[in-house]
């Protein structure tokens, strides 16, 4: 039987049928007990800036809808799916466990991806659009030739993506190499490679740009670089490649 670490929430729970002492010892060992587990629920992270702060690149209307409706819906449905998964696991209902995987991947992925996306953007007056320097800047030059070449590559792949998805600049932390990848729907970057760490992602679902750019996704891609938060991308990069 696989032992899982508890994802503990702020409330303490009593282990039924077990003494508290035993439970705390078990906790110290990093082990968990099913009936003592408290399921973690996720909530909408705040944006580090106002909805209108990214204008005129991304309108306040889009930011508000995107954050309050789309991202929130992913979170709500993710929590629901996790709850259902918990019940199914408790009952040993394997077919439900397996059936829930696509909902978890979709909604959980949506939550993961959008949480990264909000940090990938920043208002122009706070440094949005400033190209990366230091190690990430050099790595980009090494792997893509130039910063402009990278932007061009990402824009081309983002525009060519059929349907809904994301375009990423990622780091293969094993090979210490930068990659440009696309994922479909809400698949997180890690579905393209277990060693891939997202540095920045651009949402190319139509809801990310339609109200403002309509069908002209290439214009959205061209403009979004003006609010790109390279500082965040650099931080993530430097953590993996010190």
């Amino acid at each position: 039987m696989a032992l899982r670490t508890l994802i503990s929430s702020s409330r303490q729970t009593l282990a039924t049928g077990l003494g508290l002492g035993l439970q705390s010892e078990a906790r110290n060992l990093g082990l968990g007990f099913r009936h003592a587990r408290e399921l973690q629920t996720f909530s909408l992270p705040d944006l580090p800036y106002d909805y209108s702060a990214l204008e005129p690149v991304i309108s306040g209307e889009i930011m508000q809808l995107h954050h309050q409706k789309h991202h929130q819906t992913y979170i709500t449905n993710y929590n629901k799916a996790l709850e259902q998964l918990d019940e199914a696991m408790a009952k040993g209902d394997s077919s439900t466990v397996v059936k829930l995987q696509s909902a978890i991947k979709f909604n959980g992925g949506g939550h993961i991806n959008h949480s990264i996306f909000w940090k990938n953007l920043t208002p122009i007056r706070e440094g949005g659009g400033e190209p990366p320097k230091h190690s990430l800047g050099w790595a980009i030059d090494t792997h893509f030739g130039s910063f402009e070449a990278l932007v061009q590559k990402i824009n081309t792949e983002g525009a060519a993506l059929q349907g809904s998805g994301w375009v990423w600049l990622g780091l293969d932390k094993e090979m210490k190499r930068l990659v440009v990848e696309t994922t479909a729907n809400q698949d997180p970057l890690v579905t393209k490679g277990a060693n891939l760490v997202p540095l920045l992602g651009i949402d190319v679902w139509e809801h990310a740009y339609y109200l403002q750019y309509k069908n002209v996704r290439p214009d959205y891609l061209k403009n979004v670089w003006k609010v790109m938060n390279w500082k965040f991308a650099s931080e993530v990069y430097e953590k993996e490649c010190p």
Partner: protein
Amino acid sequence: MRVSRHCKLLPCCEETKDFTQDSIIGITQGEDICLWVCFVLDLKSAKEAIKEGCMLESVGFLAGDALCLALLAQEMLVLVQDALEPYMSQRTLEIHWGKHHRGYLEGLNKQLENNNSLYGYTMDELVKVTYNNGNPLPEFNNAAQVWNHDFFWESMQPGGGKIPGHGVLLQIEKDFGSFTNFREKFIEAALTLFGSGWIWLALKTKEKRLAVIKTSNGVTPIVWGDIPIISLDMWEHAYYLDYKNDKVKYVNMFLNNLVSWNAATARMARAEAFVNLGEPKIPVA
């Protein structure tokens, strides 16, 4: 300039004595120019024609025919594009039809210019061939999306919605239990589709029954040999301008006000030539 033998002059065009060849815009498949412009000079009679449902049929492209489309003059486009208001705005149609659908068509034409092996197919055949049994060729997305949008425009009409006619209703009740149950299944499918795609009411040829089908991106049930009866575009561009993220409202509005059960009846009638749906009706007397 030869007109391809695949092209058909649409019924409304035949009535028009004033159409000119000056405004023919060419779409070439090999040597054939396959496009007519049906230019009605009199706006007033055009409005009459719209009321009779004529024009709306000719806005789209003929699904089932080779790249053959009849474009109306600009005024016609404008007249027709507000026909589905207030449920689907003119603005949406302008962009959905004029940019997205047209973009797929132009993209497809460009690809076909460079690929002689795909010469001579009808749209249906082109979609199935480029689907390549699940390993789609680069042309598939454009071909399928041209076909899909064609089918979608013809799945709607002004004054649509309500309930289907007798024959279709009976079949729905047989395969879903009740019309209400079909509605629920259709709405549920629309709300649980991940990403971009389409919702279909289709006749499954092997099972010989109607079913609600979800497809992703550009896939259409014809690639599996099934027969679509009605479709709903669930790509965000289809509803975002009018409904933002409120998919529930969009789907309900479609079912209540836009879906063309007339088109469904015609398609079912045609489908029955290919699928045996039940016991033969032996007259009582």
